[in-house]
């Protein structure tokens, strides 16, 4: 079941727990990479913690998400165990994809993380298909397609929005607008200057929210999930946020103006939500530290698990190209 249906203290604390998990995980990945314990291609989600944290409290394990190479925040918020992510980052046999997918292709169908794609925009057509399965099967599952502002300019965006709209599919298109498409400013390459306004052209509900405001994202997600479950079709949410790092690990991000970066970091959503919890009395400092310590422990164990895990056997090289386990059908019953 979703965590709660009211934006109360418990909800905000849980959103913060997921945000802190994302931030601390990111800190530890950076530390492990810097120290040479991990050697990986990595796209930091720092600065974007609120979006999946406030969205995912509305989702069940059975609900689906598709995400992109910058997707570890979406995966963690959806409940993908950190140890499986770390072991995959380390290329070990115990990784979520047995070390064969890597950081850009984390998959965990057990928790609804169906696809992590390395191709800009490609989370959307597949999310439409997952949404289609809910409609064909007549179930209540919702699918979230996560993508960045850059992906709003690729053809897959248009084809997916249109098909989801004409079939009224239970899909939430979550555009995490972090203001930069790789190295390029959002405004420079986005006609009309708004992603969510494009929804109107498809006959779909489109909303813009402050992606660093947990309550705003929580409200927009609640409405979108309710709309999807009621069979009233898709929603396009544009959640505005800001990326704290370059495009990928090792990119200093010099193309991001220093004053904008400084302002964004001064308003770190993780710090702000933490302060809000204390200021408004949702939780006390001691309980908060207990919660954070549990996250630290989880990530410490994840790293230990990953780095002590075995490498894949070499016969994995050609395993899983095709299904070689199931016996194919030789006949089916027919009636005239």
């Amino acid at each position, binding site marked *: 079941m979703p965590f709660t249906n009211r934006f109360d203290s418990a909800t905000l604390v849980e959103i913060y727990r997921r945000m802190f998990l994302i931030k601390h995980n990111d800190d530890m990945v950076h530390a492990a990479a810097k120290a040479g314990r991990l050697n990986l291609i990595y796209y930091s989600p720092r600065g974007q913690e609120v979006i999946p944290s406030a969205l995912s409290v509305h989702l069940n394990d059975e609900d*689906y998400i*598709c995400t992109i190479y910058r997707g570890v925040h979406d995966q963690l918020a959806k409940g993908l165990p950190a140890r499986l992510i770390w072991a995959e980052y380390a290329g070990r046999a115990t*990784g*979520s*994809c*047995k*070390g*064969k*997918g890597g950081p850009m*292709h984390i*998959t*965990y*169908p057990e928790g609804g993380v*169906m*696809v992590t*794609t*390395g*191709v800009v925009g*490609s989370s*959307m*057509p*597949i*999310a*439409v*298909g*997952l*949404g*289609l*399965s*809910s*409609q*064909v*099967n007549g179930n209540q599952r919702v*699918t979230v397609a996560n993508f960045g502002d850059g992906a709003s300019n690729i*053809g*897959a965006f248009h*084809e*997916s929005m*249109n*098909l989801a709209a*004409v*079939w009224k599919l239970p899909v939430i298109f979550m555009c995490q607008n972090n203001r930069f498409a790789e190295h390029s400013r959002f405004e420079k390459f986005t006609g009309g200057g708004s992603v969510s306004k494009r929804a109107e052209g498809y006959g779909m509900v489109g909303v813009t929210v402050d992606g660093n405001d947990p309550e705003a994202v929580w409200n927009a997600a609640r409405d979108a999930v309710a709309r999807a479950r009621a069979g009233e079709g898709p929603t396009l949410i544009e959640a505005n946020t800001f990326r704290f790092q370059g495009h990928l690990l090792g990119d200093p991000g010099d193309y991001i103006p220093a004053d904008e970066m400084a302002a964004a970091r001064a308003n770190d959503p993780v710090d702000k939500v933490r302060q809000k919890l204390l200021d408004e009395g949702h939780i006390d400092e001691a309980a908060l530290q207990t919660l954070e310590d549990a996250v630290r422990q989880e990530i410490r164990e994840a790293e230990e698990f990953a780095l002590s895990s075995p490498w894949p056997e070499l016969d994995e090289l050609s*395993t*899983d*190209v*095709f*299904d070689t386990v*199931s016996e*194919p*059908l*030789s*006949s*089916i*019953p*027919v*009636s005239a």
Partner: protein
Amino acid sequence: MDRITVGQAINLALHDAMQFDSSVIMLGEDVADPEGGGVMGVTRNLSTTFGDNRVRSTPIAEQAIIGAGVGAALAGLRPVTEIMLMNFTTVAMDMIVNHAAKLRYMSGGQTGVPLTIRTMTGAGAGTAGQHSDYLEAWFAHVAGMKVVTFSTPADAYSLLLGAIFDNDPVLFIENITDYGTSGPAPERGKVARLGEAKVIADGKDVTLISYGAIMKTVLKARQALAKEGIDAQVIDLRTIAPFDAQTLIDNVSKTGRAVIIHEAVTEFGVGAEIAALLSERLHGKLKAPVRRIGSNFSAVPFSKVLEQAYVPSAGSIQEVVKSLMG
């Protein structure tokens, strides 16, 4: 029903698959009855029989069609998608190559994509360069994709069932001029095992390896060669990827000569892969070099005169075979 056309066989396979398994759905441009049941009428009556929840016409949006198929397949359905013409697969290549083909491997076997992509192509209908290409080699080159085609209505039926109930993505190639071709009716309910070639005519002098609608031309060449005392064996590949290497090796090792014929252009084609395999495995046993015959290395031309000259003819096959017999 003793005889059946290719179009009827495909329709029957889709019908039987949907009746047997409620997870089989269909997506494609104009496939449902309000839109005519397919531009060639191949999917006629299926939406009426199985309902518009399971048989859906789509917008003209190939990336969305295949993406919807991939997502639905990940969720446990068996979508049969239709890309009207093989050249239009280019619009959906990211979904096919980067996603459908690879998700099983990249997920470490956690997910799979039991997706069928039906598509038609071929010269002969005057549709020229953007509606007629045989592009099977592109797909065969990607690990994780299966590629299937047929040369008889009975095989069209059983191979399509094989494709639909396979747990991996299958590109199923039909020929635009071939839907009216008739032949013996299939055994209802029989599901072909993918990856098995078939010797469809025996012979001791040379092995002709081919697949798809051009098989008619190959069989015509075989008859003409017989009149000249050359006894040609014919193998129908049926599954292009992964192909049945063992059947090819076993048979070519007996005849000592092999010619691969396909409608795709020769250059970098399926014939090159098979020729290389046979040369590697049977070097020293071959009585002549392995030869390839494909279409002219150009776009498919429009003018009837040029279009006919573009594709391999029975005469060109006979010439090549005779040159190997010395």
